[in-house]
């Protein structure tokens, strides 16, 4: 049995897959904030899975992002090069909200009084300009001991190029502080730009003791429940890592949960032979999207905890998952001065939409969908949570429709349309910023609210094909079952291409690859199961921003031709992204990238029983009064029970496909076919 556990903000989802029978079961339990292990045990019990039967467990968790957002971490000190302890507070000096006099800067996790400097210095070329003052470091260690620090981050300038002083400093500090969690910048990130690296290293230290405790607790509780198998944690890069790695580089767990959905999308589109897809994950609190290009999800160029405006940057290999909206909990309001706004304020899961009856008073997107009849108050979450339709109607009518002189249905439909338009802008930006066109992609929609908005979003983006995967509400957990082992290494090595020889570059990559393979070897993967791929972040000499260029093996087949081929690949990538290239202008490498995927035997998506074109009668749930998009009046619309549909079944819009935890809306003029793996393939139209 292969088991995935995804701890979200509200629920802990469990998906178990039995490769022998192909059976999939799922379970859900409320997340238990204090001892998260408790929620896992409950969810596993709810799924009816017996612990001794679990051979391999994959875990994704919000423990790291929560610790950072709530700022509940270890007592952390920062040690920097003399003259630079304030880099962490100075940051990048930018004001994203240019006219807002109440702007706030990102607040460091380590206060100034806990940031210390030691004499040492390297040059940009990595040469020692000033040796490390060992005595000063020993004295500092003793001071940190007196202060009772639990974690220490060591960040020296140019350590990305040469970590010699960081390695030395860590050894000295660890000797004085044997219990402390000590982490150096070069262990977390080997990219230049000191503020981002400082922030990443400090965050790693801040959550280090928390995650260490968490992993140990999990290990103990699961063993106590009878678990004897192996386990892995989902890395933010979408691959698996050993629990021991999470203990030393906990920051890698940052996007551990959402990465599961992207991994699942990647696996699904691979099985379906689709190369370009947008993974769209919409839940109660957020809507997120990620691009899969040539079958592979991209890594983000930057990442900020809690968003760009006030968030601290984290520089690790994390899938490029971008928040494009605030989910079903998005609050609709009449703006000062008139007009209507949807989000970014969200009622989240608590108090949640008005219809939840948990104290929410402002109408949300979910309330609007309920009023439109697109969600069934009786079937929501398979009847586990009752929805109060009347309360939703009242809130929408009083707070929105009445004040704007709109009909109730018109206002509700408008709220959905606005939310969809906004999410559309976010998704479009993800593609066009890279010179891609959303129309070339298939939209894969999951999360509790994704299937309901997928077709509308496709119309907004002129995307003709939409897929709703099986079990959309627990798809992130399902995706974790499909994950491979994966290591990404990025190393800043600024060098003009013209100064390099092919053999030299190949050697640099080979060394990096050997380093990347190390953790996978420790995870007992056989060398023949490891697939390495190389790439580089490059730019024209004089530019600052880079383009990531994939460099497949054939580029290096003849070392003598390697450099011109790399240049050619870069010119092409630049052209794709920016619309022009300059073959005559010299280029330089900024970062080397190596990725190793450790492939392990794993399940594909199980196939569904095959039926014919006509859905079986028992799939029919009758008709429901639904206000369709752009209409102001309800009409009877066919509703289907997804659980009873068979592969090959076809349905014409308008229709709703209800599966209790989620509803798929198929608009008028749209057509749907149930695929081999139970996925709903929709084709949508627009004027």
């Amino acid at each position, binding site marked *: 049995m292969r088991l995935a556990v995804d701890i979200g903000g509200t629920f802990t989802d469990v998906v178990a897959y039995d490769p022998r029978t192909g059976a999939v079961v799922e379970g859900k339990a409320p997340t238990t904030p204090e001892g998260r292990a408790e929620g896992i045990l409950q969810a596993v019990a709810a799924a009816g899975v017996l612990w001794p039967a679990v051979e391999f467990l994959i875990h994704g968790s919000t423990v790291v992002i929560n610790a950072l957002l709530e700022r509940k971490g270890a007592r952390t000190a920062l040690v920097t090069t003399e*003259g*630079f302890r*304030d880099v962490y*507070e*100075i940051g990048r*000096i*930018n*004001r*994203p*909200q*240019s*006219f*807002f*006099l*109440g*702007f*706030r*800067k990102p607040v460091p996790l380590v*206060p*100034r*009084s806990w940031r210390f400097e030691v004499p040492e210095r390297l*040059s*940009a070329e990595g040469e020692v*300009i000033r040796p490390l003052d060992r005595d000063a470091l020993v004295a500092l260690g003793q001071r940190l001991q007196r202060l009772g620090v639990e974690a220490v981050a060591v960040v020296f*300038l*140019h350590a990305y190029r040469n970590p010699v002083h960081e390695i030395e400093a860590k050894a000295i500090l660890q000797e004085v502080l044997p219990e402390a969690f000590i982490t150096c910048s070069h262990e977390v990130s080997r990219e*230049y*730009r*000191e*503020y981002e690296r400082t922030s990443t290293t400090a965050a790693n230290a801040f959550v280090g003791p928390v995650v260490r405790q968490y992993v140990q607790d999990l290990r103990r509780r699961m063993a106590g429940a009878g678990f004897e198998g192996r386990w892995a944690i989902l890395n933010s890069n979408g691959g698996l890592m050993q629990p021991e790695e999470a203990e030393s580089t906990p920051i890698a767990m940052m996007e551990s949960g959402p990465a599961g959905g992207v991994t699942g999308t990647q696996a699904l589109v691979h099985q379906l032979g689709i190369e370009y897809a947008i993974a769209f994950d919409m839940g109660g609190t957020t809507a997120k999207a990620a691009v899969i290009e040539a079958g592979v999800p991209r890594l983000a160029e930057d990442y900020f905890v809690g968003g760009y405006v006030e968030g601290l940057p984290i520089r690790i290999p994390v899938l490029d998952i971008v928040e494009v909206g605030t989910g079903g909990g998005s609050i609709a309001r009449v703006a*000062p*001065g*008139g*007009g*209507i*706004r949807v989000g970014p304020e969200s009622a989240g899961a608590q108090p949640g939409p008005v219809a939840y009856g948990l104290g929410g008073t402002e109408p949300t997107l979910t309330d609007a969908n309920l009023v439109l009849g697109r969600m069934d108050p009786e079937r929501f979450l398979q009847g586990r949570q009752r929805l109060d339709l009347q309360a939703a109607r009242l809130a929408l009518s009083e707070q929105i429709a009445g004040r*704007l002189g*709109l009909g109730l249905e*018109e*206002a509700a439909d*408008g709220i959905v*349309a*606005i939310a969809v*338009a*906004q999410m559309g*802008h976010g998704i*479009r*930006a993800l593609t*066009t*910023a890279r010179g891609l066109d959303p129309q070339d992609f298939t939209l894969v929609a999951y999360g509790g609210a994704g299937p309901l908005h997928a077709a509308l979003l496709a119309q907004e983006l002129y995307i003709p094909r939409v897929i709703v995967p099986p079990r959309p509400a627990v798809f992130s957990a399902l995706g974790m079952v499909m994950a491979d082992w994966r290591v990404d290494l990025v190393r800043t090595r*600024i060098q003009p291409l013209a100064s390099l020889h092919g053999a030299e570059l190949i050697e640099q990559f080979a060394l990096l690859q050997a380093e990347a393979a190390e953790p996978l070897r420790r995870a007992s993967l056989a060398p023949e199961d490891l697939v390495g791929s190389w790439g580089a972040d490059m730019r*024209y000499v*004089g*530019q*600052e*921003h880079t383009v990531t260029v994939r460099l497949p093996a054939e580029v290096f087949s003849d070392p003598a031709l390697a450099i011109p081929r790399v240049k050619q690949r870069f010119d092409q990538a630049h052209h794709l992204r*920016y*619309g*022009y290239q*300059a073959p005559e202008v010299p280029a330089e490498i900024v970062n080397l990238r190596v990725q190793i995927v450790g492939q392990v035997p794993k399940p594909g998506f199980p196939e569904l029983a095959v039926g014919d074109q006509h859905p079986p009668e028992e799939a029919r749930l009758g008709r429901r009064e639904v206000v369709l998009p752009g209409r102001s009046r309800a009409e009877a619309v066919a509703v289907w029970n997804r659980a009873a549909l068979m592969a090959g079944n076809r349905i014409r819009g308008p229709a709703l496909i209800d599966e209790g935890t989620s509803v798929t809306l198929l608009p008028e003029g749209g057509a749907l076919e149930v695929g081999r793996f139970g996925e709903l393939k929709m084709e949508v139209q627009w004027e």
Partner: protein
Amino acid sequence: MSQDLSPIVTEILRSALVAITDEMKTNLMRTAHNMIIYEALDFTVGLFDEGGNTVSIGLGLPMFIRGLSDTIKAMLAHYGRDGIEPGDLLLTNDAYIHGSHLNHMVFALPVFWEGELVGFAASMAHWQDVGGTLSGVTTDIYSEGLQLPIVKIHKAGREDRELIAIICHNVRFPDAALGDLRAQVAAVKTGERRWHQLLARYGLTTVRGGIRAIMAHSERLARATVAAMPDGTYEASAFMDDDGVTAGHHIPIRVRVVVAGDRLTVDLSDMSPQVAGYYNAGKTAGRSAAQVAFKCLTTPLDFPINDGAFRPLEVILPEGRVVSAVRPAAMRWWMTIPMTVVDTIFKALAPAMAEATIAGHHADLLATSIYGVDPRSGRFYVSAGSLPGGGWGARQDADGMSATVCINDGDTHNTPVEATEVRFPVIVERYALRPDSGGAGRHRGGLGTVQIRRMRAPASLNSQVERTQCPPWGLFGGKDGLPNRLSRIDREGREHFFANGKANSVPLEAGEAYAIYAGGGGGFGDPQERPVEAVLHDVVEGYVSPEAARREYGVAVRPSEEGWAVDWEETARLRAPAPQR
């Protein structure tokens, strides 16, 4: 308000317009060739209606808020509406039209729909070099580089090769210039394409109705805020160090703001006449300064930025002032004085809206640059100065922010030390907050920074740092912050402060250094009212020295086992009301 258009369609169009200018912005930023565009964000993109009025701006450079609109209006006046054809692409860097320096190239693409001119997609970007003298000092526009009047760089879809050759002949780095040019063209074409998509989906009438409704909404918001201010005439003044030519000769800044009902007038008639040195700005920049202040105080988070928001604002600005200079005034440091004008407007309006205003900030980019030959490559270089960031003023409910870019700029980033040292032959020895630089107050001003850069090879230093003599002011009893400062540090470690913040090709030997001290922000409210715990916290964190805590805040602290502790008895004595005389 447009009654015929549903608020829902209006809202969908509103988010679409913001998204289009965001996409233009991303496009330009990622494709530009020079660091000033993609790191300092010295650009602005936007969509404009057929009359040149701002529909949506993507920043970029906040102080360029009027630059695109006024330039398009000048282009319309120049060619007449009938003189502009599909496939034309208009270009100028006329400093007296866009109000700023010659580095700012403005491209405007007329957008046609079914044969009718419906608007413009435009972009401004700062080119790294447009020729002109390498010396820091200029006294007329002709020494500042290539001037392009309003021209068509594309005529009916065809690029003017001769014009491009003229440009390439007049700049030092033609490859970079052409790279930036292409990036700007790509950005405006993106704007046109997406605008066409919007028109195809919603139709011209609806889109125009939506734009009218969006502008009307912004206008209502702004008017309501102005109406809430007490009517009256509000005045304030400040001064600049000098004009860059005649040291020690202050330049007066005087603003008068008149609030009457829901209208607000900014009168800049009493500003200094234009100066002989290079700190002049054109009238577009003077008007921009008033608009920036107005936007900050009325509708800071209302998007898109559009001309509806400025309908309640009138600006009185006669020609020939230092922020409405006429040919041949030197304009290279156009951005400096408008920043102090914005701050002075905030100061003037403090009595009218204490809750919205802000104390003075360091008000300068603090951009220094060096040039020379890099011994590592043997090549000549000119470094763009890293912007170190300075202190911002405190507000009624919050301390000022430390180490943040001045109001001329927005989402502008500093250059990482590690990037600077890869690129240029310098070692940055220190980049730190400047304790005690924030003005004392119930809310303390933000801290400035200090950055020390040591030369690895001989180089020449240019600096145009201002506001070294008029410190960022406090409000309502808050104290001033420390002003900006510049020094040279010789090889023996002796520090020599400059009389002002200016350096004109000052030679620095290998091993010599210079230091930029960024000012702090002004305080807000009486420092004696700052909670003792807050002062202690500032001392513990090293933002305020124990001496300043005692002197400015009347709080006595002494070393303790945990670091610092309050001497309550002494503090009570220090904070006791002064005995009656």
